[in-house]
């Protein structure tokens, strides 16, 4: 008898929250870590270009799910691309590149967030998303009607 999906997932190497936090706070010292509602939240500011404003962002993470990122302020443009329906950022296409729990948020999710903001500003300047894009049509994306799955539900019930 093989392992169940849950049991199998327990065998994967996991970077625990303390280690994640250590790396985030080392690489992005302005970020602040809090435990909220059984999950971890790191809040901080990112400024992708010299003349950009600072964007306040929050990274939510529970070991049982995938990290999600929300821009707290300023409000993003209503039609901004590459957002999930719940306004969290689409930083990668799970079917092409799955984020794994042995990865560091500090070297993946947060740099991708800065890059997302960088390309978002270029989109504001030109009306075109000039960053690499999966071009996948996904019903869970901004403007579509499908519900989010557990994988991409942000911990948005957490206070910001």
């Amino acid at each position: 008898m093989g392992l169940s999906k849950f049991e199998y997932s327990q065998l994967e190497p996991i970077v625990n929250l303390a280690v994640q936090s250590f790396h985030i706070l080392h690489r992005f010292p302005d970020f602040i870590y809090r435990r909220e509602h059984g999950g971890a939240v790191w809040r901080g500011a990112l400024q992708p270009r010299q003349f950009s404003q600072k964007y306040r962002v929050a990274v939510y993470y529970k070991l049982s799910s995938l990290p999600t990122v929300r821009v707290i302020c300023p409000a993003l443009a209503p039609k901004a691309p590459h957002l999930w329906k719940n306004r969290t950022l689409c930083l990668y296409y799970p079917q092409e590149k799955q984020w794994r729990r042995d990865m560091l948020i500090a070297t993946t999710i947060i740099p991708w967030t800065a890059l997302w903001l960088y390309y978002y500003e270029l989109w504001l300047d030109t009306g075109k998303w000039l960053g690499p894009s999966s071009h996948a049509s996904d019903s869970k994306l901004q403007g579509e009607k499908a519900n989010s799955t557990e994988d991409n539900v942000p911990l948005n019930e957490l206070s910001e």
Partner: protein
Amino acid sequence: MFPLITHFEKLLKNIQPPKERLDVAQELPGKIRNYIKASKDFLTVEPHTRLAGSYAQHMAVGDVKDVDTLVRVPGNPEANEPEAKKLILDLKKLLDKLPESLGYEGYAAVDVERARRSIHVYFKDKDFHLDFVPCIAPDGFEKMLYVPDRGFNKWIPSHPIGYINLLNELNEKFDNKVKPLGKLLKHFRDHQMKTRKPKSYWLGALLIYHIHKGNLDMTQSLGVLFHDLLDAIDRQYKHLIWTSETATPNLPDPMLGHNVSWNWNRSHFKTFMRRIQDGQSWADKALQTNDRETAILHWQKIFGEEYFPTEVEISASELAKAGLPGQSFVTSTGLILPSQPVSGIYTPTQSTKFHGTEQI
């Protein structure tokens, strides 16, 4: 809101002084120093000369033709030794031969039109000139020094290098936004005012005043900062327009505190305030609109359509390539860089593709 970051980057490139002028400002100081240092008739003190003014501040915009240099001389400013009037003539005599020594034709002249405390050196067939200000610097250029007053009757305190250092400090503290903001204000003045312009130093003093007062949220984008600066200047001085028929601003020197704008002509001040209010109103509309083209048109009213671009497709494409995930780097503040920075904490980005349909 459209922050139009690429447009502002392009604007700042477009208002840079011509390259040949920047080259002159870079190349000449060393040659000038050697020339002045070698003189046996005109005594100077180590390190003899120092580039000052907008080129030294890295705040030059447009067609700035004068390259300012301080010349350090020995003396006692309180005793008016050497006598400023005599010294300036001796300096003129020395500088008369400078163009020839640099391989140009030209001549030196005492500035009687402007601050009246310097020697201009003009070059035949060149559209720039050098502006030399003698100074007594008891503790070196980095500290307070003394320059001739108007009419060369005495020596008065000044702190030009302290001002440059202060600008550098603020610029570093606020993510390199301070000097670009100062450049935008100077270009705004030059574009909107052909005459009656306030001095660049006054604009710099205004900028520093509002930063120190905390009137500007330096985490904002450059366009918002420009709007907020005009707004702050308007709120600071508009009462002078309505409460008096003669009042002008008492603008504190950023280094020494005295009123630097004591000779601001009332009608010139009123013209400046009208331009500030126009600019503030246009910037407000540019930031409020939900239409990119409308925002661009308003910024073009402020800075000129020859300077503020309509299209930035090429620059944006280049930036997009420079930021590619897997090739670019991110600093601890989130700045995306195309190559590894020389210092500080940074993280190489890993490749990814942003997920989803494009919305054009």
